[in-house]
């Protein structure tokens, strides 16, 4: 399949142009799966996680103040849904794609390590501080409940 690279490059959560390229390419052949997944499973998360998720907490469907035990158990439950092996079992039409699980795993790796989590929380604050417009806006749009981003009047105004 020829890969087109005309997509206006989004600043992904963690960079690397090949990752963008990959997720773009894989998601293009993923479309029918997404549709069927949303009917098969209660959580419409397959579709959601296609876009760069707003935060690692969102990836694991957690509140920002989740405890380490909650993080671990969220990772397990999500692995049971999105690990390619489990996904094949639950949704036979699943084609063994790994994107979702890798994203879940990366989020878990950061959040399960106390020091990495602290650094990440700080960077999340900084991002919300307004350096990155797209990031901040998607957060504010997506989160109606739960964790309330530290938005200030100035940041809203200057963008």
């Amino acid at each position: 399949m020829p890969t087109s690279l005309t997509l206006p490059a989004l600043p992904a959560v963690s960079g690397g142009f090949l990752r963008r390229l990959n997720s773009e390419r894989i998601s293009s052949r993923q479309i029918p799966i997404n549709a069927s997944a949303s009917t098969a499973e209660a959580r419409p998360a397959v579709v959601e996680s296609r876009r760069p998720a707003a935060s690692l907490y969102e990836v694991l469907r957690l509140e920002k103040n989740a405890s380490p035990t909650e993080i671990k158990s969220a990772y397990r439950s999500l692995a049971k849904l999105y690990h390619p092996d489990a996904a094949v079992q639950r949704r036979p039409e699943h084609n063994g794609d790994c994107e979702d699980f890798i994203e879940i795993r990366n989020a878990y790796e950061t959040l399960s390590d106390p020091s990495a989590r602290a650094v990440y929380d700080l960077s999340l604050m900084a991002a919300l501080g307004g350096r990155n417009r797209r990031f901040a806006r998607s957060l504010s749009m997506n989160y109606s409940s739960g964790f309330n981003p530290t938005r200030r009047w100035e940041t809203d105004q200057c963008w």
Partner: protein
Amino acid sequence: MLNSLPMFLLMIIYVKSMYEYDTKWGMAEPAAYTVASDSETTGEEKSSSFPEIAIGVDIGTSQCSVAVWNGSQVELLKNTRNQKMMRSYVTFKDDIPSGGVSSQLSHEHELLSGATIFNMKRLIGRVDTDPVVHSSKTLPFLVQTLDIGVRPFIAALVNNMWRSTTPEEVLAIFLVELRALAEAQLKRPIRNVVLTVPVSFSRFQLTRIERACAMAGLHVLRLMPEPTAVALLYGQQQQQASHDNMGSGSEKIALIFNMGAGYCDVAVTATAGGVSQIKSLAGSTIGGEDLLQNMMSHLLPDSESLFKSHGVKEIKLMGLLRVATQDAIHRLSSQTSVQVDVDLGDGLKICKVVDRDEFEEVNKKVFKKCESLIMQCLQDAKLEVEDVNDVIIVGGCSYVPKVKNLVTNIFKGKELYKGMNPLEAAVCGAAVEGAVASGINDPFGNLDLLTIQATPLAIGIRADGNNFVPVIPRNTTMPARKDVVFTTIRDNQTEALILVYEGEGKKAEENHLLGYFKIVGIPAAPKGVPEINVCMDIDASNVLRVLVGVVMPGSRQPAIPVMEVRMPTVDDGHGWCAESLNRTYGATLDLVTLQKKA
């Protein structure tokens, strides 16, 4: 009957069916071609939901077994002699090979003729510079090396003629017999298998195993490192013990130590709610065979020089010594000292009392290595000895008192996990995985299991001089995708050589060469400017793809088309490849890692 056919006939049948497959599907849908090519296990094939349950197969260095999920539990299949464990050997006779699954003759007797080939799991996918191949020269058949990095020459003595064979062929003969056994008992054709493999197997060795399966007409659904199959079985047992602890809190950590005749593997797994996360893996090519060889040279110090000529007489001598030593080691498991009495012929007699201390002293290095594997595994999992809830010892060597002691000593006298048959645990785990991976649902939730695997070896490229720079470190959870950015080492460098290695060595050549390709057309620029992004992707079926893209700073577009290469591409003769690449290109096309800008 399939198992009475000579291998070459099987090959013809196989090639013929492949040919028909290709011509049938190749025209209409070119994409289907990859599914048909022999050793490939593509993820796509998995999706077309098989109604059949894949069988679990454990081809050990000395014994093999087959098991299947029978709908409510794992059942080990027995051969006509009512054995669950079958000896892994093949005897060549008048061009008709017969394996340990079906054949009736006693192993010990056949050892002496030179017509019996065994220990092939130790030799598969190895080149003749490998020390493991060299130590296999004392086997009572022909293992010849040229020491240039090609596959060794292996032959059986049939009617005073050396008949050449390969490890793949020998394994395929077992697999054909195991398949026939399973088909006869389950009364259905068998195509899908889950096979257990040692942790330390390189990707090249895995392709050789897949090749052997393809030769036997089997499709590999999954190749599972042995301790992770045990981990899955442990996960199932924990799940059955407490159905109500889904997810949270009650996570159990187990360390699995598996030592068979050929390999030693260690894994640390964290299990809760049927999900087993493999936290770390470690493995090495040490096992019962090393204990045996060390003991043989202890009993007959000049054995190696005696065996050099590989004549009929020497083979018989080697066979006799091997059988007597093996017997002594077995008896030393229950006795503290044993009498070895063997007449090797030609006036050569061994008459000696060997005690357990002597045996342990002779094999000191092997036991040291076992300890270091366990320590490394715990360290990689970032765990202390106290964090481990269960210690599981499996494999044939678990009967050796010293092995049991060294493990319990590390865990400060902790009682070992009971409830697993040391010889059957791996094949049972493979059978459970076979059922899970075939998409079988169990009404009682006994198959509501998931094993999240980790990569046993690091994968990376040669860069920063002659160094190995891992892109995917070892013990990375699979499926995985990681990338590292490299750059050119000289001004206007327009080409770069990507050498993909797998292993743990710091220097590139200490690792296993998986493949290589050249990036051409890098835009001319000062050194350090082009960004060469090397991305490695391992999917859930453990297929490795390497993607390389070149970006110039300030541009979002790749400067040249991205290269995507499926590994391994090196088929044979790794020693040759690495050396001649080095000779031809030297450091002219090298890369260095690009320091991340803040």
